[in-house]
């Protein structure tokens, strides 16, 4: 649910927590190096193990953060998925805001003034 009061923001509430449970549970499993390796070996099989919904599976396949959030993903767990691909939070920020990483960094710097 996007909160009407705060544009571009999804509060991870009960509705999101229910919707995203399978996806977040898979991401939580990536605290283990063995599980990260298993995912990389066979992404389809690993996703099936956690019962991802079709939109969740598609969002993971697309490596698309906004889609992952819309499918119920919580960024604390999604960060573990992103880590597998070597993406940091600035990569995620740039992708979600539709700018390059350099542009995203420049925006952050501008907030200092």
């Amino acid at each position, binding site marked *: 649910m996007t909160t009407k009061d705060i544009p571009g923001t999804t509060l991870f*509430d009960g509705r999101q927590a229910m919707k995203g449970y399978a996806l977040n549970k898979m991401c939580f499993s990536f605290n283990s190096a063995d599980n990260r390796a298993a995912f990389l070996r066979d992404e389809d099989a690993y996703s099936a193990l956690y019962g991802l919904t079709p939109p969740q599976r598609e969002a993971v396949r697309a490596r698309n953060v906004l889609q992952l959030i819309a499918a119920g993903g919580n960024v604390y767990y999604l960060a573990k998925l992103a880590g597998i691909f070597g993406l940091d939070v600035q990569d995620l920020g740039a992708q979600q805001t539709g700018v390059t990483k350099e542009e995203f960094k420049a925006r952050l710097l501008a907030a200092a003034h």
Partner: protein
Amino acid sequence: MAHIVGGIATSHVPAIGRATAQKLQGDAYWKPFFDGFPPVRRWIDSVRPDVAVVFYNDHGLNFFLDKMPTFAIGAAPCYTNADEGWGIPQVPAIAGEQALSWHIIESLIGEEFDLTTCQEMNVDHAVTLPMALLWPDQNWPVKIVPVCINTVQFPLPSAKRCFALGEAVGRAIRSWGSHQRVLLLGSGGLSHQLDGERAGFINKSFDLAFMESLVHDPRWATQFDTTQLVEKTGTQGVELLMWLAMRAALGDKVERVHSNYHIPISNTATGLLVLSSPA
């Protein structure tokens, strides 16, 4: 009775762990952040804490959505750091002060705070990074009591409730029959948002007003509900609840020893505040 020496609030951005491991403290990007800490270490040397009570939020290391406590407290002999998935170097385990844990548990539940108690608990970067910033050799001179506040799953506890929790923890520490010297830590914030089209949101004027309020008007932030705090500080900026609980535990009067504020580290406005409690 135990004595509270003061409190320290700091950000816990994961990139700090990478910078530390790569020894980038003097690098132009990092220097304004790390330069905040030598005065803090000198202050710690002067107040000689034995125990640290750490208010922090777990990011999916110890707790998952299967069981998500609003307030959880460690009562473990030892707290272990572990792989969080995106690879920052782990730190040595930290000893727990179990006697204080149980004293706080008994005192708070006596005051009708319904805590989750944990005799096994992994602690993530929100505990380990502040510890490593204060004691870079990671040869921990203090035992800890971690107090975890949920900032993952909404509804979060309100700022008002976190303040009340902090006050109760402060009362518990001051009534602990021990001569130990207790330091309070608040780990998190300040303004930042990692998720959504609003990612990268930072609010300098609110952060500075919040830091100032902790010195002179500590209840100021309790006027805001959680949605208002997200609006003003970002979805992860709500971690300022840790600062608020820490401040509440210090009691009425504090003195500012040191502060620092720097934008940005990673996606985050970083803050550092050291407050002493008059003896």
